[in-house]
């Protein structure tokens, strides 16, 4: 167990192992993504109320789910960095933020596009939607704060503090927005809810959710690899790697 943690702290080991994980995970992810997309787009029957527009669900929901989960990945990495001063956690946190922001963006955008045919408007100040927008700001805040610091070590610490503070906030945002919403107007817009999901829709959806998780993992690892090299630019193993043209 200890030796595992010890290895986790070693950049060349992490670089190597992430390389070999990616070698099989990346093709698998792409395969799952394409299968899920084609399945959802071509082979499922349309929803009886929403017609074909519901096909957006296969990207909208996975993106939203993984975007939310990604924040916790980032915050936990930040906490590890602060408490155990583990450099790899810093790398992971830095790598997670832009991916999370991109997924949040996808969720928002597909939601907005979906809203037009279903609700007749691009944007509604619904509880979930607003909290998603706030999540985007939280991610962007971390990215911007990291970029604003010249000293990257300090940047990592500062972002860790920020993302931890944000974590406390996320459940509050969720709950509070719900309460707030129920006060003001009846839930005229209802998400379809799990119960109405037919297995023929559920399976491709589950596949897509898995694929998005895998996608997140792949992007995280790739970002970490790039970041690792830049941080370790002065060490021998990176220089050797550079001379070998990246294979090694």
């Amino acid at each position, binding site marked *: 167990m200890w030796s595992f943690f010890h290895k986790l702290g070693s950049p060349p080991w992490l670089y190597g192992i992430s390389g070999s994980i990616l070698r099989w995970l990346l093709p698998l992810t792409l395969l799952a993504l394409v299968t899920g997309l084609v399945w959802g787009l071509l082979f499922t029957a349309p929803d009886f109320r929403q017609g074909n527009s519901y096909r957006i669900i296969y990207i909208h929901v996975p993106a939203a789910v993984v975007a939310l989960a990604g924040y916790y990945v980032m915050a936990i990495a930040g906490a590890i960095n*602060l408490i155990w001063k583990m450099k790899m956690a810093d790398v992971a946190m830095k790598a997670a933020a832009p991916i999370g922001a991109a997924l949040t963006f996808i969720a928002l955008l597909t939601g907005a596009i979906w809203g037009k045919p279903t609700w007749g408007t691009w944007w509604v100040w619904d509880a979930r939607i607003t909290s998603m927008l*706030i999540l985007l*700001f*939280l991610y*962007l*805040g971390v990215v*911007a*704060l990291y970029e*604003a*610091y*010249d*000293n990257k070590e*300090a*940047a990592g*610490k*500062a972002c860790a*503090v*920020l993302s*931890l*503070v*944000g974590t*406390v*906030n996320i459940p*509050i*945002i969720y709950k*509070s*927005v719900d*309460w*707030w919403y129920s*006060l003001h107007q009846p839930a005229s817009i209802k998400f379809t809810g799990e119960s109405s999901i037919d297995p023929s829709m559920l399976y491709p959806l589950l596949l897509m959710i898995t694929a998005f998780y895998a996608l997140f993992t792949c992007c995280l690892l790739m970002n970490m690899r790039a970041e690792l090299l830049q941080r370790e630019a002065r060490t021998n193993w990176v220089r050797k790697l550079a001379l070998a043209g990246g294979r090694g």
Partner: protein
Amino acid sequence: MSAPGPAAFCLRLLRRQLVLAVRRPIEIGNPLLFFAMVVALFPLGLGPAPDQLAGFAPGILWIIALLSNLLTSDAVFRSDFDDGSLEQLLLSPQPLYLSVLAYIGAHWLITGLLLALVSPVFALMLNLPGEAIGSLVASLLLGTGVLSLLGCIGAALTVGLKRGGMLISLLILPLYMPVLIFGSAAVQAAVNGSPAGPYLALLGAMLSLAIALAPLAIAAGLRISVDA
């Protein structure tokens, strides 16, 4: 020449911050002025239908409180950073947790408390029903405390940045949202005649949590900022 006890030191810091603020009356007047101006702007921008205004008054008042807090929190540590006082604070043998609380306390006194005290005037200008004014003041008192604590986290994290600009508003506005929601909900509840107590209790709980945790984040942020 004995070193002062933490409490005595804290009070001295608080006094220092308040004197500094009073010497720059614009600092104190600004949130109020801002408050007054936006209250005046709203009817101008929206058209002054009185009944509609009343419906929106809780939200408007709370949004203004939030914005004026946001605008002033950037400055809490700025001048101390620029003139080197912040370094000295970090090197002090006193517990940083308490010193930070003194800074936040001063900020709250000259923004939050003052705003809460004058808010009834503005509430009347926006036709807020008289019976909601109690919960408006109470919610502002509690809520601006949370806002000051959160705002100072943002201030601490960005004070040392050469290229930060107004980054602080991006960092802390998302954190402000729950306070805004509960604060305006409390007032709205009072307007509708339902009990505002639960919302105020929630704000109180958030305040306690923030008082316990925010100074830790702020202290960490200051150490990072001075180092970078």
